[in-house]
């Protein structure tokens, strides 16, 4: 579904991704881990089409499209979804209104009939159960006055409604207490399917106790330096990121000798 080859990206002249490659197939859950500044969030933002990053090399193929040439809204309509690390507040715009506009933009793109208000409300009342969210939040302004946990649940609710093919969760666990973490993870798990790929970007192993990935990748200095199964996350938790960094340095040092 997603094929990233030798991707280079920089912001304000500073290179963050330095030759990142990754293959993701439908039905798979990939965890991207790594220390602060390793480029995890940059990867998430670049895939979603954030304009402030400059792509300086490499390619990204998504379901046969050159993803890098698509505008952010086109990517979204083609099924790329980013759960934001910091969901933004939009004063005066109803949460439910934004969601309806988003869903209908996507449906229109797919050539489906747009949902009217009643149909949409029926749908959302079903979907909201996934994240055990209070219905009141639907009628409040987007993310305004939401707690950290409510914002993250709202992201997962959007994911449940928009049913993306590729979902990227950017540090969805940050700022969550254990109860909220379980609810959010439960929501994500219920959305796992054969047709859907999920990329979980996280700093801590904790989230992966609940969302068990098929693959774990460790990012360091803008490149994937180690890949493995779920056990890799546990190993990282014990040994710290320093371990991977020294591990990967070894061959270079050996060469130098």
């Amino acid at each position, binding site marked *: 579904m997603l094929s990233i080859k030798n991707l280079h990206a920089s912001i304000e002249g500073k290179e963050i991704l330095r030759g990142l490659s990754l293959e993701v197939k439908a039905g798979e859950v990939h965890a991207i881990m790594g220390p602060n500044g390793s480029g995890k969030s940059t990867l998430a933002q670049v895939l*979603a089409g954030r304009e402030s990053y400059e792509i300086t090399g490499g390619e990204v193929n998504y379901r046969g499209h050159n993803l890098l040439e698509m505008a952010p809204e086109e990517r979204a309509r083609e099924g790329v979804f980013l759960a934001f690390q910091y969901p933004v507040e939009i*004063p005066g715009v109803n949460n439910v209104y934004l969601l309806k*506009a988003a869903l209908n933009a996507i449906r229109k793109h797919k050539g489906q009939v747009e949902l009217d208000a009643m149909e949409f409300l029926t749908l959302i009342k079903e979907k909201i159960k996934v994240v055990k969210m209070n219905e009141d939040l639907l009628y409040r302004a987007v993310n305004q006055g939401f707690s950290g946990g409510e914002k993250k649940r709202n992201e997962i609710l959007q994911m449940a409604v928009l049913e993306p093919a590729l979902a990227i969760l950017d540090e969805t666990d940050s700022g969550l207490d254990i109860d909220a973490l379980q609810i959010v993870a439960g929501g994500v798990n219920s959305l796992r399917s054969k047709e859907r790929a999920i990329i979980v970007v996280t700093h801590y192993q904790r989230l992966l106790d609940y969302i068990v990935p098929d693959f774990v990748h460790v990012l360091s200095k803008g490149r994937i330096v180690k890949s493995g199964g779920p056990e890799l996350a546990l190993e990282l938790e014990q040994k710290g990121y320093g371990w991977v960094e020294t591990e990967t340095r070894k061959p270079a040092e050996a060469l130098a000798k």
Partner: protein
Amino acid sequence: MGSSSQQLDQIISKEYEHGFYTELEADAIPHGLSEDVVRLISKKKNEPDFMLQWRLKAYRHWLTMSEPKWAQVHHAPIDYQDMVYYSAPKSQKDGPKSLEEVDPELLATYTKLGIPLKEQEMLAGVAVDAVFDSVSVATTFKGKLAEQGIIFCSFSEAVQEHPELVKKYLGSVVPYTDNFFATLNSAVFSDGSFCYIPKGVRCPMELSTYFRINAKNTGQFERTLIVAEEGAYVSYLEGCTAPMRDENQLHAAVVELVALDNARIKYSTVQNWYPGDKDGKGGIYNFVTKRGDCRGKHSHISWTQVETGSAITWKYPSVLLRGDYSVGEFYSVALTNNYQQADTGTKMIHLGRNTKSTIISKGISAGHGQNAYRGLVKVQKGAENARNYTQCDSLLMGDRCGAHTFPYIEAKNPTAKIEHEATTSRIGEDQLFYCKQRGISAEDAVSMIVNGFCKEVFKELPMEFAVEAQKLLGVSLEGSVG
């Protein structure tokens, strides 16, 4: 930063999509202003002597005045001797013969706003049959209103039919000496609307559709007078959500509202006159004096305005809270784009006891637009327990526009409670990106964000108008904001 703000720029700098006509009037008196011209206007309108005397007093006073300079607006000097102060109602022969001759861009805008065909013809100035549908519509309305004793007619008609009412209330809220533009208006005003709601009557309809029809060709010096007797209620809608075909550069209107005991007047305006092109050439100067007088106990006046047009907007709809327990409200959305300038706000003058006022002002600036809120809250000595709440929010789009807030507060009574809140925010790339990441186009996203920002004001507009205002903002955003 990055291409997202470039994209914002692109949307912002799109050209105004509405076409305008500039054809000269044939049947007009020579340009320039003199006592003779004032006399001629009065004579052409067949006015009683008290009107002529009032106009002349205003004219003589105007000669002693000079243009105000304090507003946060800049424009080339206006040559008052170069203007034409009276033109006979336009001959319909000069207009386009059918909608097919009208600029398709203009029609596209009307269609987007959902304006019925007949009204599109009116707005575009299409020459329509003399026995025009709306005439009978207007008559039906008038009949229905007259049954309840409501008078609703053009100002000229009121001068002829109800001189005693005109004489009693004209200039009683905005005296002819009030300010440069109001004084000029008093001397030369051509026409306008007159509305009188008798005691205890609740006006059964929003006075809107009729006005739209009535508003045609009222000219650049318009005068409106609304009187609500004890316990009366009226909701009055002024203006039009579509761009008007208009040749006049300077507009100096005056609106006077009088609310007696327990009366309530709700006055809503949506203004979308030609704002000038993207380089700031052309456009209407809108210098308006609007004032309401809460003359009676428990009276209530609210102003709601959505201002998206004109090159320069200079207006401060105000309320004199004279009666005890009277309430004044001001809800405003002002949008400036390209080189548009707006200096707008309100004055709430608390004179009576236990008076209350609310001010909600939303300014949106884009392009090189400059938007100033200027508001005065004044509590006089005798105004025990006066309360005011003011909220001024500014939204900036791009980095070349400006927002300014000038709140003036004068409290001469220690029991006064005055609150003022102000915020300035920018449409963030973050907000835009968030919406786009959910599949929403940049234009829709901006429109959604701006409408969200204006929500508190839109909810004050009568339902039908609110929908149009939202659409208008959408169209303005598409065409001139982004």
